[in-house]
Structure formats: structure tokens, C-alpha cells
């Protein structure tokens, strides 16, 4: 019974869902099935939450009981699970007061008719977020009566306090680690070790430059972008000449000659190309053509793989819910 009942349930449910896809949408059967499936998955999802909680308590409880290394962290985990769960259950009116203080109005130079006000949330009278630009300072003169006006918006529930001041900063901090990891990964990985790596390198530089307006960097931005063509072509020619020299030292004179000729050809192209290099347009071309082609190829493969896996599960060839093979 244990061996054949789960695959039967899986197969029957799978076939029902497949039939549901083919039913016309305005039929009673479709609507009934839809409601049944939605309600069932909600109920199963909620029970899943309890299973997770039970596993968490069991796991950390065992660590505390056995005084395993790091059991103090388990105490903290369990206590905060209980505290935050309780704060979500108790009344919405329990929590610290939060005072909202509208900042100075500001007008954009080119949109004088639109007024905007930013609100800062202050906790116990301390400003925890401010936002000013040069435009704000200019606009203060237009509307001095709005400056410093205090308005109490509402009491923030304790749960929202935890969310705004604990969960949000911690989530943002963990995500921000990615920036550092990515930069070191970029430094380690972006080396022109082969022609494919060179292609990757060149396209990633184009996209990096196209993504941000480098000409806006104070003092040097305009100089860099003004000489971008020089930098790009010079680098390309130098790289090809370096490769040619490698071939020369390895006594591959024909390859050396071809590469030198390519460098000369690029020099000629440089002479005839217009002065401005539009990195944003190049970035769009890379994103819209080779990127799309590659993504579509992988997507089709992945979807076919998913389809095959689904058929295998529905037909009982693979039974992951029963430990792999039944």
C-alpha cells in the first residue's frame, strides 16, 4: 500500500491539473476545480509552516539540551522566534510612537508646477533618515511655511518596529555583501586567458560603461568619455600586437603576420569612425541580440528538461517523494 498509493495520488492529481489546463474557462467545472486547488494549496502551505517551526524548535532545542558548540545562538534563535511571533499576534495598537516630519518642499528646475514633500520617520525624536539636495535648499525659500511642520501619523505596531529596524537593515546588509563579493569575483575572473574570455571581457566592459553615465563623474568624467575612442582602440590594437608578439616568439610567423594586419586594419577603421562612442547603444545591442539569443536557447532547454521531469514524475518513473526510486 505504501509503495503504490503515493504514485497513484501523484499521477491522479497530475492528470487532474493537466485536464484543468484544457478546460474552457467559463465552465462550472473549471471554476470549482480552481477554487478547490487554491484552497487545498493554501491549507497545505500553512501546515508546512508548522512543520518548519517544529523542525526549528526540535533542532535548536536538541542543541541547547546537549550544550553543543554554539548553543547560545540557538537560545537567541528560539527566543526571537517566540518574541516576533507574539508581537505579530498581539494588538496593532501596542508599539512606539512615530512622528513624521515633512522635509522642505523642493521644485525641479524644469518642473516648477510639481511640489513634492518627503517624510522622515523619527523614533523618539531622533531623525533617522534625511534627504536633501541642492534643489531642496533652493526650494525652501519658496515655501518657508512648510519647514519643520510636525504631524503625528500613527503609532507603529511593535511588529512593524521589528520589521523596519531589525529585519530590513539586516536583509539589506546581507544583500550588500554581494557587492564586495562581485567586485573580487570580477577582478579574479575577468582575465583574457583565451579568445572566449576576451570576448566576455570586452562585452562586460561595454555593458559596465553603458550602464552608468561616466561623463558625469566630477573633474575626470568628461575627459575619460571624450577620449573613450582613443582608449578603446588603443587597447584593442595593443592587445592584438601583444598576441602577435607572442606568436612571433613562438616562431608562428604567418599567424603573427595575420594579427599584425588585423591591428593595422583596426587602425584604419579607427581613422574612419566618428568621434563619439555610444556605449549605451552598444550595450542595448549586446543585451537585445546576443544576450537574447543565448537566453532563449537556455530557456528552451530548461523548459524541455522541466517538461521531461514532470512526465517522469507523473508516470511514476521518478518518485522523489518516496526516496528517489520506489
Amino acid at each position, binding site marked *: 500500500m505504501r509503495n503504490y498509493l503515493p504514485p497513484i495520488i501523484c499521477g491522479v492529481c497530475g492528470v487532474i491539473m493537466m485536464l484543468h489546463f484544457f478546460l474552457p474557462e467559463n465552465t462550472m467545472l473549471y471554476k470549482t476545480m480552481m477554487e478547490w486547488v487554491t484552497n487545498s494549496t493554501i491549507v497545505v502551505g500553512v501546515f508546512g509552516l508548522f512543520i518548519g517551526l517544529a523542525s526549528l524548535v526540535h533542532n535548536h532545542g536538541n542543541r541547547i539540551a546537549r550544550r553543543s558548540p554554539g548553543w547560545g545562538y540557538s537560545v537567541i534563535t528560539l527566543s526571537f522566534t517566540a518574541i516576533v511571533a507574539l508581537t505579530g499576534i498581539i494588538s496593532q495598537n501596542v508599539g512606539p510612537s512615530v512622528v513624521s516630519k515633512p522635509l522642505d518642499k523642493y521644485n525641479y528646475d524644469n518642473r516648477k508646477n510639481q511640489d513634492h514633500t518627503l517624510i522622515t520617520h523619527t523614533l523618539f525624536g531622533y531623525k533617522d533618515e534625511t534627504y536633501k539636495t541642492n534643489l531642496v535648499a533652493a526650494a525652501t525659500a519658496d515655501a518657508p511655511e512648510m519647514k519643520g511642520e510636525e504631524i503625528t501619523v500613527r503609532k507603529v505596531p511593535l511588529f512593524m518596529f521589528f520589521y523596519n529596524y531589525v529585519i530590513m537593515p539586516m536583509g539589506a546588509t*546581507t544583500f550588500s555583501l554581494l557587492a564586495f563579493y562581485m567586485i573580487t569575483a570580477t577582478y579574479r575572473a575577468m582575465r583574457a586567458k583565451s579568445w572566449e574570455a576576451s570576448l566576455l571581457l570586452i562585452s562586460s566592459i561595454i555593458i559596465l560603461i553603458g550602464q552608468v553615465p561616466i561623463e558625469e563623474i566630477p573633474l575626470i568624467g568628461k575627459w575619460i568619455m571624450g577620449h573613450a575612442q582613443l582608449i578603446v582602440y588603443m587597447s584593442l590594437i595593443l592587445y592584438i600586437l601583444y598576441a602577435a608578439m607572442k606568436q612571433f616568439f613562438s616562431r608562428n610567423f604567418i599567424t603573427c603576420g595575420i594579427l599584425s594586419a588585423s591591428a593595422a586594419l583596426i587602425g584604419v577603421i579607427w581613422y574612419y569612425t566618428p568621434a563619439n562612442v555610444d556605449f549605451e547603444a552598444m550595450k542595448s545591442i549586446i543585451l537585445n541580440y546576443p544576450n537574447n539569443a543565448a537566453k532563449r536557447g537556455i530557456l528552451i532547454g530548461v523548459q524541455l528538461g522541466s517538461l521531461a521531469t514532470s512526465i517522469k514524475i507523473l508516470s511514476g518513473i521518478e518518485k522523489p517523494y518516496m526516496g528517489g526510486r520506489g
Partner: protein
Amino acid sequence: MELFTIKSLPLWLQYVNENWFDLNKLNALIGIIIFGSLIVYFIRRAKSGAYLFVRRIPGLESIEEALGRATEIGRPILYISGIGGESDMQTIAAMNILGNVAEQIAHYDTDLKVPCINPIVMTIEQELVKQAYTRAGRPENYKEDCVYYLSDNQFAYASAVSGIMVREKPAANFLLGNYAAESLIIAEAGASTGAIQIAGTAAISQIPFFIVACDYTLIGEELFAAGAYVSREPLLLGSLKGQDIAKLVIILIMIVAIILATVVSALLLKDGFVYGLSDFMNKIFDLKAFK
């Protein structure tokens, strides 16, 4: 140009369309039947003993090397099946591989740790690992606590996994399944401990991070092929072959459609056989062919 109109069909077909079967999805049904038939055909061929070639996938070849290394050093093996739910295909593919890996680990008697982000995935994986140990003839070595739930928050999970990697220093990390932004955090934490890392995902945007930080990476559908590759079971190999042939059929259709579309736009055709054929090829993949 519409392929057909509902009103042009016989009355009984119109009745069927309104009450029993949406004719706009007929192409999907035909596709499933063709695809399923290909899979069934190759499964039967595999069962009858025919040799089905599958190309070498370096990441999967190195699983045994990774397990052996972990056993020699005496450190545990960490298996992470991604952040997807129980209905995510990538998680299911990762679970298939977990079954095979757990069976080999049971033979080597090495510690296995499987931290989970989803409680339902955790219960499935607990059963899976237990069954794997039983199949290997080592049910007594199965530890209840080896598969456990951490948190369902993506970054809380990533932080916890990084902490496990740094504290327990597993010798081999398997990062297989659906990943999002936490992929680089986990992979870099593992790389910093010196563990051998085998990663695999169909999430295209995370593949570059795995390639940089891990030793072996399974890209896209190699993850789905892994279950068949590792176990070498005829049923699974047959379905893999069927999937590949289906892909070939789609590629051929796409090539024909591209040639026809190019000819139609180059010659500015508005009617005729070539135009009709090109339009038909566009419509057969449309889920609203019938208006």
C-alpha cells in the same frame, strides 16, 4: 490571418469547445502527445538494452572524487538543494541527485548535512535520505538530524549556510537547485574554506557566479540530466534521449520557420503558398489560434 474561426467549425465541435475542451490549446495537447511518445519510445529502447550515448558532464563525474576526498579528510558533506519550493523543477532535479549521492555517502559512512529553506522540501528530503541509506544497506547510519530546516528567508538562510560552512568546514559542497542572489554569498563562503564545490542551476543569472566561485558547474538542463547520468538507469536515460530528440525537432521547426519568415519579409509576400506556410508556422505555437 486567423487559423480558423470558432464559427466555421461544426456545431458539435463548437459545443465541445464551450463545455469540455478549449480548442485553442489543441496545439499544446498535440505537443505533449508527441513529446510523451518520444520519451516512451526511447524508454522502451533503453529497456530493450540499446546503448544510449550521453556526453560526459565533468561536474557529475567528479561527484565520486568529492565524496572520496571528504571521507579521507574526515569532514562532512554539505548538500544544498536551493531556495525553490517542492513544486520547483530544479528542486526536484536536485532531490533526484541527492538520492544517488546519499546512497554513495551511506557506503562511505561520511557525515551528510542537508540544510533546507522549505519545510515541505525538508520532509521529502528526510524520507529520501533515509530510503537511500536503507537501499545502501546502512539504515543504522542514518541520522535524523542530518536534514533540517533553517529559515524560509533567503538571506537568513544564506547567512546560516555560510556560518555552517565556516564553522563545520565541510570538505565537499553540493549547491544544486534554484538559486537567486544568495548564490554568490554561499559559493564564496564555501570557496574561502577550501571545499570542493559542485554547483548546478537552471537560473541563468546565477550561473556566472557559480562558474567563478565553484570547481564544477552544471549549466541549465545538465541539472535535469544529472539524475539519469548518475544512476544510469535505462528508464531515466531513455527519457533524457527523448528530451534531446524533442529539442532537435523544435530546432528543425525553428530553422524552417526562420527561413520562411526571412523569405516572406525579403520578398514582401502578402499571399501565396510560402506566405501561408510561414503564417501557419507562426500560428501553430500560438495559444489563441482559434478566435
